[in-house]
């Protein structure tokens, strides 16, 4: 069973390496959006410090949305998804592998680039640290919940808009906890803890339920 997980993960990563433009779109979008705000607002450090956490998190949410549509679409179009449904493996497990691959390609780069982004907003060292941690906890939730939406809207006309309407409300808790954790930790370093716990709880819940829900939605999409 682990073998099939690794097989799908390796396949998706390899495919992404051969289609680099698609992979880097989300990351570039994130960097550009976040960089536009300091240019528009001006160089007032106090204001930037206050706006920073919210802006970074909103941009992360939108960047995650951008890449979601392609999560199952390519496999759906060429028939590989049909073949995945017909393998002697639990579908939720294969879907989980696809979600992890998606997160490694679109979520993890945001975590890594976060310190550079934090500098633009003059965030303190502890706030930067918190920003990276919340992104590390929060971005997998975005991929997991997003996968349910991507599976539900698979093969629909105008699925992109529907996907945003479906998924963005579910992203709100992640946005609130993530941004709040960063802004409180810029004054007291340890004040972000409750938000970490909330994010952690949501991550566990999403890990448990999202692959199952996405797999069920995929079965319906392929009827």
């Amino acid at each position, binding site marked *: 069973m682990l073998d*099939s997980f690794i097989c799908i993960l390796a396949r998706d990563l*390899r495919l992404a390496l051969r289609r680099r433009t698609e992979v880097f779109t989300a990351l570039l979008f994130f960097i550009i959006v976040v960089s536009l705000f300091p240019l528009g607002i001006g160089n007032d450090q106090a204001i930037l410090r206050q706006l920073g956490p919210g802006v970074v998190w909103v941009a992360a949410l939108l960047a995650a949305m951008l890449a979601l549509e392609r999560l199952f679409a390519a496999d759906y*179009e*060429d028939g590989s998804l049909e073949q995945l449904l017909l393998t002697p493996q639990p579908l939720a497990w294969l879907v989980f592998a696809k979600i992890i691959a998606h997160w490694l390609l679109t979520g993890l780069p945001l975590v890594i680039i976060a310190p550079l982004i934090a500098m633009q907003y003059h965030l303190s060292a502890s706030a930067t640290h918190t920003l990276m941690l919340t992104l590390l906890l929060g971005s997998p939730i975005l991929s997991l919940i997003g996968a349910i939406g991507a599976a539900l809207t698979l093969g629909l006309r105008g699925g992109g808009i529907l996907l945003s309407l479906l998924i963005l409300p579910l992203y709100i808790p992640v946005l609130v906890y993530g941004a709040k954790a960063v802004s409180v930790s810029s004054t007291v370093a340890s004040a972000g803890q409750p938000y970490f716990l909330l994010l952690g709880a949501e991550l566990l819940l999403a890990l448990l339920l999202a692959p199952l829900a996405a797999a069920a939605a995929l079965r319906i999409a392929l009827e």
Partner: protein
Amino acid sequence: MLTVTNLSLRRGERLLFTTLNFQLPAGALLHVRGRNGSGKTTLLRALCGLLPIEQGDIQWRGQTLTSLAEDYYQDLFFLGHLNGIKGDLTALENLRVAGRLTHNFATEIELQTALNTIGLMNCSDLPTRILSQGQKKRVALARLIFSRAALWILDEPFTALDIEAVALVQQLITNHIKNGGSVILTTHQEVALTSGTLHQLDLTDYSPVCTNLNPIHYTTSHSDLLSC
């Protein structure tokens, strides 16, 4: 042994066919026929467990598909209208993924042999997206060579193939039947079979428009070469 009892299928609002009954024993081929839109593909997809059934029952070796779930797919090979291969991977990489996912631990040599047999050795390191339609189909069909599934369900396997490849696939099907496997296929071409039994099923007979309740009639024959 695949048993279909009293099957009705619906596509959207339209009832495609009703009270379909047949049995497919090991070592037999079922050729599903019918005019365009009569529900051949729908039937095949339902037999794969991809579609919900309106009415009736499909059993594989005495157990319903729903109770078997993933275990059924251990015994099933399905090729639909879409090839199910990734355009950015090479033919060999595609086969490797297919082999690993279906749990049959095909060795690297087996995969190479499969590519050789299907006649794609020269383009084994090219991404499949630049291959021709027929060559893509060949990549998808190469999976048959190392498949260990007992039941093959093939939807129009001969489209886009040249004469040589059609003969090869027919040979693969014949060998599979000889080894006690079962095959269900739809095609508008002639099907030749040198051993085993050939059943035919014409879906037009079960279309609800005709409202006929005549019993199942498929021709069974053991002749050397059968055309249908």
